[in-house]
């Protein structure tokens, strides 16, 4: 039976459906785009390499003779510089994952494992099952154990990434030539679509229903892009907008601008004056705006409709406001609630800090 079955299997798979011609042409175009010539070694170069190798051999023999005679101390190879200490990233209680880029090195800790790699930008997926990473000129999805789920050639350095709350799409900004270009790609690494060819290098923010997201377009204007209708709407706030943050539920959108924070939703538009904003985010469903002070930050809290809901102080510099925790830098430590997330060098650049 097996041999008969095997024969049928061979026949059946050889008789599988044909690919669409259009798909082939598109695939050919994509494949040719990444084709890079491999230079064949030239004769002249080969000869030069042989001469160089010969000279090195003679030099080593001569040095060895001198060393044997005690006339020369030979030390071959510089002592390798130890890699910088990897930040010890701790997972806060109740969180699925935490990620941060410290001096260009991404650290991720999740319930499924931890990993580190150089990165230009990063975003955790819902429930921190994956992290989308700007790596070289690619956008890469990495599992917590370090395994690459997929990699997509982005055509430039990825500078900002935002994973939709439903996990199905990722918005990301690429530095392509002299411009920043906004793309959307499916969460499984396919169907990449350029959305806007002139945007600012600001992390987009998805609306809670994952049907639209906000970004900062050319001229610093805030734009909301509707994924379903493939349409965009410019938000009427004074540019330049420097940060966008949709509420974790509903449609309230917070926008950081030169004179403070604007809170926009379908029925209201409220402006919160502040000459300086240290961090902006949604904390337990409310808008939190961190205003820098001398040794501490003032965190002002607002309802989604903009009504003030009090304020509190945080000792240190507010580095991020995540859905459940405020992350504060005190000296060399980054603290979230009662958890010390990691210790960093004093002058370290910390970015894309997320707790999911």
């Amino acid at each position, binding site marked *: *039976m*097996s041999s008969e*079955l*095997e024969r*049928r*299997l*061979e*026949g*059946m*798979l*050889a*008789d*599988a*459906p*044909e*690919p*669409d011609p259009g*798909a*082939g042409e*598109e*695939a*050919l175009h*994509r*494949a*040719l*785009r*990444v*084709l*890079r*010539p*491999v*230079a*064949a070694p030239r004769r002249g170069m080969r000869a030069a390499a042989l001469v160089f190798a010969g000279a090195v051999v003679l030099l080593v023999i001569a040095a060895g003779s001198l060393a044997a005679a005690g006339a020369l101390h030979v030390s071959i190879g510089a002592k390798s510089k130890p890699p910088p200490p990897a930040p010890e990233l701790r997972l806060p209680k109740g969180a699925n994952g935490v990620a941060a880029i410290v001096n260009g090195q991404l650290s991720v800790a999740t319930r499924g494992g931890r990993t580190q790699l150089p990165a230009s930008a990063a975003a955790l*997926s*819902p429930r921190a*099952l*994956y992290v989308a990473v700007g790596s070289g000129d690619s956008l890469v*999805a990495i*599992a917590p154990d370090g395994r*690459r*789920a*997929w990699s997509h*050639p982005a055509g430039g350095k990825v500078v900002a990434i935002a994973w939709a709350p439903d*996990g*199905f799409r990722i918005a990301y900004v690429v530095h392509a030539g002299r411009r920043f270009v906004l793309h959307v790609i499916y*969460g*499984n*690494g*396919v*169907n990449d679509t350029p959305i806007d060819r002139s945007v600012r290098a600001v992390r987009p923010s998805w609306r809670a229903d994952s049907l639209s997201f906000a970004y900062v377009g050319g001229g610093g204007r805030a734009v909301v892009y509707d994924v379903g209708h493939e349409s965009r709407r410019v938000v009427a706030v004074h540019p330049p907008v420097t940060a966008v943050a949709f509420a974790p539920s509903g449609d309230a959108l917070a926008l950081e601008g030169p004179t403070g924070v604007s809170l926009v939703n379908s029925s209201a538009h409220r402006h919160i004056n502040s000459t300086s904003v240290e961090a902006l985010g949604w904390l337990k469903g409310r808008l939190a705006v961190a205003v820098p002070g001398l040794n501490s930050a003032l965190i002002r809290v607002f309802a989604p409709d903009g009504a003030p809901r009090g304020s509190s102080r945080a000792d240190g510099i507010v580095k991020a406001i995540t859905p459940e925790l405020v992350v504060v830098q005190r000296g060399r430590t980054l603290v979230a609630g009662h958890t010390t997330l990691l210790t960093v060098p004093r002058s370290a650049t910390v970015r894309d800090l997320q707790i999911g």
Partner: protein
Amino acid sequence: MRRARRGDREAAALLFRRYWRDAWRAAFAITGRHSLADDVAADGFERAFAALGRFDERRPFGPWLHRIVANRALDLLRAERRLSDEELPDTPDSAPSHAAGDRSLLGAVADLSLERRVVVVLRYGVGMTPKQVAEALDLPVGTVNSRLARALEQLRETMEVEHVE
């Protein structure tokens, strides 16, 4: 191959046209979906062309390409499963040109677990030896053989049940 490695687009296009159909079919047989097969096969070629510099041209291109395609399909399906926490719709879209018996066999293959399905596709669809399948999937040959044996057993049982019904 040598010309393609040196960046000759015409030669690379010829290489593409020679292997595209087989690569797409392998992707389709593993993923069971037209749209995914398009993406997986296209991505496989993109990766293969990007890595042509590392390819040993004394070895055949086809198995190397299929290895990339199969692993890409596996990664994609596993990623989808993790993201959705659900089983994928594994049933092939359609295969209208098949004979009735082959269509049910294709359905039976689609019902295999992902791990078994991929070894069946590489072994019988692509024509790799168990050793090549093992290399492609980074598995011991014994594991490939046992998965093949179990897959064939499952297929045989499925086909027998269908035959009785």
